[in-house]
């Protein structure tokens, strides 16, 4: 018994202070992935049944709606293409590197970490699909988080609201750069070190600033929801609510920056 306790403590310390155990963890991960898949069966079945009993007219309405939406988006994306070209020409004139569009991989949510201290989700793409640790994750409305652990068929994503997560952002209106910290409370981010004189208002959109090199520039992150300035304090307490639907997204997008794809291709499959 004492042996087991000592062994556990040794594991705990090794895992906390070093990364020697990452190999062991990913091996074990591959072993326990079936448990996650099985745990997902009831949810999938229910959703499957819901699809079966959905009426024909409802489906047709949805199809029409989606088709219209697709037309609009397509038109906008044509416009976008010319804007990107123009933007890149202007950037060339300014002597800065051209911006490339990022590639994305659609992935399905397969699990949520049941630990209240951790805002993490599991998605069904892993190292077999070239997913890497540190990769940013989006949904249709904004940034969700980043990949923190990869196994062959699944990966774990830390959400931006996790209280271990920091994210460099900027206010879209005034280009003010800030750091957004997760609070551990779902649907809340805290902005750190906001000066009382800073140009920031409730309702401002925060976008990722790209500083730190992990997240791409310009993805929407959150809207400022609360400013509370106590004159006795040096900074304004500022909170923001994420624009992505962190707990409600069934599908998420894994972003591949173009550099990473190039590196992968030169490495070979």
């Amino acid at each position, binding site marked *: *018994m004492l042996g*087991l*306790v000592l*062994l*556990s*403590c*040794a*594991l*705990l310390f*090794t*895992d*906390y202070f070093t990364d020697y*155990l990452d190999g*062991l*963890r990913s091996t*074990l*991960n591959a*072993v*326990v992935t079936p*448990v*996650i898949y*099985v*745990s*997902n069966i*009831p*949810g999938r079945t*229910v959703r499957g049944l819901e699809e079966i009993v959905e009426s024909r007219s409802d489906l047709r309405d949805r199809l029409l709606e989606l088709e219209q939406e697709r037309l609009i988006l397509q038109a906008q994306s044509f416009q976008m293409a010319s804007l990107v070209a123009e933007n890149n020409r202007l950037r060339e004139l300014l002597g800065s590197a051209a911006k490339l569009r990022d590639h994305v991989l659609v992935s399905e*949510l*397969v*699990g*949520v*970490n*049941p*630990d*209240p*201290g*951790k805002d*993490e989700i599991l998605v069904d793409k892993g190292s077999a699909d070239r997913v890497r640790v540190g990769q940013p994750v989006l949904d249709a409305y904004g940034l969700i988080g980043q990949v*923190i*652990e990869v196994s062959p068929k699944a990966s*774990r994503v830390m959400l931006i609201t996790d*209280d*271990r997560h920091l994210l460099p952002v900027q206010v879209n209106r005034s280009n003010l750069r800030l750091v957004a910290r997760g609070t*551990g409370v*779902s649907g809340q981010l805290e902005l750190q070190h906001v000066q009382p004189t800073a140009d920031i208002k409730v309702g401002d959109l925060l976008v990722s600033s790209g500083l730190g090199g992990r997240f791409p520039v310009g993805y929407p992150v959150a809207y400022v929801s609360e400013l509370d300035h106590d004159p006795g304090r040096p900074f304004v307490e500022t909170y923001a609510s994420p624009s992505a639907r962190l*707990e*409600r997204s*069934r599908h998420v997008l894994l972003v591949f920056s173009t550099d990473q794809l190039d590196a992968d291709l030169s490495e070979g499959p």
Partner: protein
Amino acid sequence: MSWLPGVVIILTSIVFAMILAVIALPDYVPLEVGYLRPQWVALVVIYWVIALPHRCGPIIAWFSGLALDVLMSNLLGHHALLLAVTAYAARHLHQRIRMYGVWQQSLVILGMMMCYQMISYWIAGMSGDGRWREWYVLSAVSSALIWPMVFLVLRYLRRQFDVS
């Protein structure tokens, strides 16, 4: 090979408990309900240790804990340590616990799960997540409340398949 069906039943029940521990709830259920979930793996391990102390002990508990750590992305050794200690305590107390009625057992389980959550909180604190959450206590309470069901189901299985 008469021991084989028994091992299969024990392992299946532990794996099933792990599935319950990580299962994703449907979208319309608030997240808090998920945090309230009982410590399924601990309950199942305690049952098997009480019922078959010569077969199940800290070692099985330790390995199930390691698997649970990977599933829940805790530090490796977190649940392994917790479950091994729990199994050790249960083995010590098994003769007394067997004498109790099911609801009395629930009270013992409540005490054990409180200790379990306390050690869990310590380990989390050492690894930098030292925030106290009322879920620690509430999950111990829900574990104690669900114990009679776990006990009856597993006892039925044990008798049905004659695991000994």
